[in-house]
């Protein structure tokens, strides 16, 4: 199989800078609260657990305030295109919630925090979800859903 790189949309610099900010946020959260910034865990705990509730809730508020500040105060225009149909969005959302709960993490918890701590569990989880997501996109394209 030949892989064709999409050079027009390739933005390694901004991606890398965003990644650096995410890394700083992970460490800042860890060194101040002692916890890992896995977003699925934080959302799930905010909904179902009273422990550290305010701290988790404020992290999520920040997660929305950060982009709000970046877009509306600093006036950056950020693209947003969501091409999936409504049923796909709903089923996909349920799978993301359900899957990250039983798999104990998402892109941030396993993909960034876990890999950075050299956790084999997280490396396995990350490879699994990236491969499955790639297969899903390929299948949906093949079947003409997206």
């Amino acid at each position, binding site marked *: 199989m030949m*892989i*064709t*790189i999409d050079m027009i*949309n390739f933005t*390694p610099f901004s*991606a*890398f800078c*965003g990644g*650096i*900010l*995410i*890394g700083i*946020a*992970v460490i*800042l959260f*860890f*060194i*101040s*609260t002692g*916890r*890992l910034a896995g977003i*699925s865990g934080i959302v799930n705990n905010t*909904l179902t657990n009273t422990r550290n509730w305010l*701290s988790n809730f404020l*992290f999520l508020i*920040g*997660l*929305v*305030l*950060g*982009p709000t*500040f*970046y877009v509306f105060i600093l006036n950056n225009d*950020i693209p*947003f295109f969501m091409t999936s149909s409504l049923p796909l969005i709903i089923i*996909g*959302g*349920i799978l*993301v*919630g*359900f899957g*990250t709960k*039983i*798999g*104990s993490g998402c*892109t*941030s918890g396993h993909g*960034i925090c876990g890999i*950075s*701590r050299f956790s084999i*569990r997280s490396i396995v*989880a990350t490879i699994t*979800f990236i*491969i499955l*997501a*790639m*297969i*899903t*996109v*390929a299948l949906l394209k093949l079947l003409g859903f997206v």
Partner: protein
Amino acid sequence: MMNKIFSLLSGSIFGIGLTVSSMTNPAKVIGFLNITDKWDPSLMFVMIGAIAISAPFFYLLRNKSKPFFDLNFETPNITIIDKKLILGASMFGIGWGMVGFCPGPAIASLALLKPLSIIFVIAMASGFYMSKFVKIDN
């Protein structure tokens, strides 16, 4: 008090990071997952950037006894790779591929007030609740 301020601060920086890197744009994420057509490898650089910062710091902090504003570090100590991990990661991967949203960017994109993001976040929250009613036997 300080840990609340730092939670808000780290959440905000995390959110700006997701926005700067375009993770909040589902089409960009789909472009990264789309290896059979035209592949946009940008998002690999998000992970590289994040890990380049967090891995060395986690290493440097490994012997620190407690965080600045809380009693102790809470890190997972499970090491087994079980069916739950694989099943959960697979389901998450399928959902991620269907939409192009994982939990962080989905929440961060609420800032843009897009109805479809809000629907996704509600569906995701229901997924969390549903998992309470399913028992997975390892």
